[in-house]
């Protein structure tokens, strides 16, 4: 079995046909047979596309809501800018906040959207919105960007999870109505070995256990063979075991990169997470999300941001450089953002509060036009934003870079057509 939708079977739409248990088997088990042809056909229809679409996405998730003013959109010398200075970058006339000097050097390869607007100022709801492209809706659970990518794009030869969340907080990307099998595979500091992929007993005992399992399975299948088949249970175990034996598991082992490379990313869990992200996309993982928590700076904003930037800067910069050197940047979209930004006003605790009304995202690679700054926030700190980009637009941009049509709709469990994203790709960044 070469083509192997280990974690995220492409076009597994059993959520839509849940009553047809025989079809469930198709989705859980044989999903990999169907979609590639359709997908090629869909891509072939696209006109004017000469370059290859991006293959993967890496999301650097700044959890807590990073201050745009202390990262990608400083306003030095203004009241709202506070004490944060700007520094020159690889983009002419574009400054980012001090504290990101290494990233500043790479900025010619990056574009900034300084005018992202959302309607959710609560962490959980904001995270949902930014990760799925939709506001929370009690009648449906939307899939995260990575889940959509895995659902829409083929698995090729990937034997490890294709949607991965490294250092997740309580809200990693989920499969939503596409199904739990599109949930992000969660892992923590890559310095530690990957849990649960190693057998706990000798090979001999393991073999015996597997043989014994088939005895129990036979007994249960009697009189309900097809129904048991349709649960996908045995297939899922078979796949889990293939993953356990896969050479691709080495992708999780950052220690096998050279010390000089590891050093560049920084000796932090987040730095190792970014290095693991690069290794994972090398074996065909579609989406890796790496979380850096600690951006909820209601108090002591400057010092907290300084500490966070010291972790973010080497990791983000090294990731861009490393991807570029390996000729992977053009097939990988790198996106860096959080659930919202922070208020232009500085509160009495020297902090900034939640601000979904104009914040920043950095985006690079994957055919996204580099060196562009989209939109601007008001130096006076009002909610007036130049060239607002909605969260839907942002998602549409990434999906377009992946060669997907944001207008394509999947059916929700009750048959509601739900577009991959509800916005328009940011034209300054695409094509």
């Amino acid at each position, binding site marked *: 079995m070469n083509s192997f939708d280990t974690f995220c079977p492409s076009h597994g739409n059993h959520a839509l046909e849940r009553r047809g248990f025989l079809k469930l088997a198709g989705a859980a088990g044989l999903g990999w047979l169907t979609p590639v042809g359709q997908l090629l056909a869909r891509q072939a229809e696209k006109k004017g596309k000469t370059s290859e679409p991006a293959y993967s996405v890496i999301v650097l998730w700044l959890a807590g809501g990073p201050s745009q003013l202390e990262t990608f959109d400083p306003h030095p010398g203004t009241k709202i800018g506070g004490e944060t200075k700007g520094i020159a970058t690889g983009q002419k006339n574009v400054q980012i906040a001090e504290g990101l000097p290494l990233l500043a050097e790479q900025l010619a390869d990056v574009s900034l959207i300084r005018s992202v607007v959302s309607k959710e100022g609560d962490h959980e709801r904001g995270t949902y919105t930014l990760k799925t492209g939709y506001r929370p809706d009690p009648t449906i659970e939307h899939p995260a960007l990575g889940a959509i990518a895995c659902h829409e794009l083929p698995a090729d030869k990937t034997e490890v999870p294709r949607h991965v969340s490294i250092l997740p907080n309580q809200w990693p990307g989920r499969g939503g109505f596409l199904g739990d099998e599109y949930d992000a595979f969660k892992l923590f500091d890559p310095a530690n070995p990957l849990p649960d992929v190693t057998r706990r*007993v000798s090979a001999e005992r393991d073999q015996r256990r597997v043989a014994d399992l088939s005895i129990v399975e036979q007994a249960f299948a009697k009189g309900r063979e097809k129904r048991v088949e349709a*649960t996908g249970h045995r297939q899922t175990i078979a796949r889990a075991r293939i993953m356990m034996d896969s050479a691709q598991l080495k992708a999780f082992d950052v220690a096998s990169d050279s010390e000089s490379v590891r050093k560049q990313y920084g000796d932090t869990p987040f730095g190792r997470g970014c290095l693991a992200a690069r290794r994972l996309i090398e074996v065909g993982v579609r989406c890796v999300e790496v979380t850096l928590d600690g951006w909820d700076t209601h108090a002591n904003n400057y010092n907290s941001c300084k500490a966070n930037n010291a972790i973010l800067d080497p990791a983000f910069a090294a990731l861009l450089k490393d991807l570029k050197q390996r000729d992977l940047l053009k097939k990988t979209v790198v996106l860096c953002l959080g659930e919202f930004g922070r208020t232009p006003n500085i509160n009495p605790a020297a902090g900034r509060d939640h601000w979904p009304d104009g914040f920043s995202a950095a985006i690079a690679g994957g055919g996204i036009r580099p060196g562009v700054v989209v939109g601007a926030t008001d130096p006076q700190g009002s909610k007036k934003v130049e060239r607002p980009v909605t969260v839907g637009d942002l998602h549409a941009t990434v999906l377009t870079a992946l060669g997907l049509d944001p207008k394509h709709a999947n059916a929700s469990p009750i048959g509601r057509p739900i577009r991959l994203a509800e916005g328009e790709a940011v034209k300054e960044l695409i094509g």
Partner: protein
Amino acid sequence: MWLRNLLFIGLVVAAIAALRANLFPLSGNAQVRPVAPVTRGSELDEVIGRVNAAFRAEWTAQSLQHAPLADEYTIIRRLSLALTGTIPSWEEMRQLEAIPPENRVDSWLSYLLHDRRFGNYFAERLARAYVGTEDGPFIIYRRRRFVTWLSEQLLTNRPYGSLVAELIVSDGLWTDKPATNFITVTTVPEGDGPDQERLAGRVARAFLGVRLDCAQCHNHPFEEWQQKDFHGLAAFFGKTQQGLTGLYEGKGEHMMTDHKTAKKETIEPAVPFLKELLPTDGSRRSRLARWVTHPQNEYFARATVQRVWALLFGRPYLDSVESMDALSNPPQPLVLLAQDFAAHHHDLQRLIRIITASEVFWQDSKANHELTDEHERHWAAFPLVRLRPEQVVGSVQQAAALKTINAESNLLVRATYQGSINEFVKRYGDTGEDEFTGRGGTIPQRLLLLNGDMVKESTENKPFNASTLIANLSANDRAAVETAYLSVLTRRPTAEEAAHFESRLAGSKGQERISRLEDLFWTLINSTEFSWNH
């Protein structure tokens, strides 16, 4: 780390208690006691008979041969999983064996309905429908308090209509009056009191089985609901305010922005259907509460039946728990159950007894003839449903403990148990608010059971783990295999299984024998049969 220490202490305590219970099987714990069967010769007979006849008529009309009845242990396992979220313990199975076979299921059901595990597990399921899984606004929302309160209501079998009415009308503080959390959870920190629209959506979905939310911003695209229907419902919460003393009825109106003209207008409270049942006196919320829970509000009764059905079978009767938009023409069994529920003061335990005594609950999930999608659709065989994460972890722990883990267990045992459940659910992946969408299993879940710490630690050679106890205390190989099967799968092995695993144990001693039993536990825990309700 603390958890591991706690686990160890807990296991020692549990195992000593288990040993004691072994020696004195009837001492010191809640007992499954024989009760007179309720399914035969009781006043429930008539309604159960009518429900059975309705299903039989449907199968005949569809020319479907239904599955035969399952054995009583299968029913006992289903009841435990549905009502307490775990399998029966080996200890409980032994107690059951002392009861005449024809009374076992009834005794078991009565025992479970009085068990705090039922209150807690069912309360959590209902809470997901009422308030979701979000942490909610920190200061003014206490989810645990809310769930504990719900659990108490369920155990006293409070009429369900009265429970729901209290959710809607309660004033006061969220700490002092737990029911108010139903409303305070919708409060947005920077907003202006509880969110009237979210409450309207909740009331419609959780209590009436209707999705009105889509009509919040526009007229419903494929159903008859109008934007005003939704906002009329929201207006019942238009005067609900929040202050230092908690919730109260104050001043205020509900405003709606017309989707065509973008004009804002004040909307008066109104219900979308059965308008004649709406009382005219009392506060807005009191009127809404009495309308929702009115004995003639068939939407309420049917939505409740639909939800309880889903909790018992793991799958809703109709397509989704919260969209009974097919209500205008519901299937006959659902109508019968709803009528009985409404006619008996919305008695939840009665409803549970009727459904679980009906043939459709007793059917096997296997048959000598082929079971097709059509059987599935018309409930002509018991469905195979993947267990919820709490059910999986609860069952692993229960299987490995031999002794019942319940409210009467040692505090440490319970704390360890709860800690493991939380940790496991986090890794396994929670199902979230909509618990009944059909989902297959995932590879991380399989990895967790194949290689994870929890299974390893519950089955390996530890002084008082089930595998160790069985290895050391069973009279012979046959008894050892049988005990393992009863503990994990709530059944005895088939002849082939018994022969196979007895041969695995044959002649083994000491550490080797314990390892063989650990392997047997591992094997049973990783089977389809263990992870799916059947």
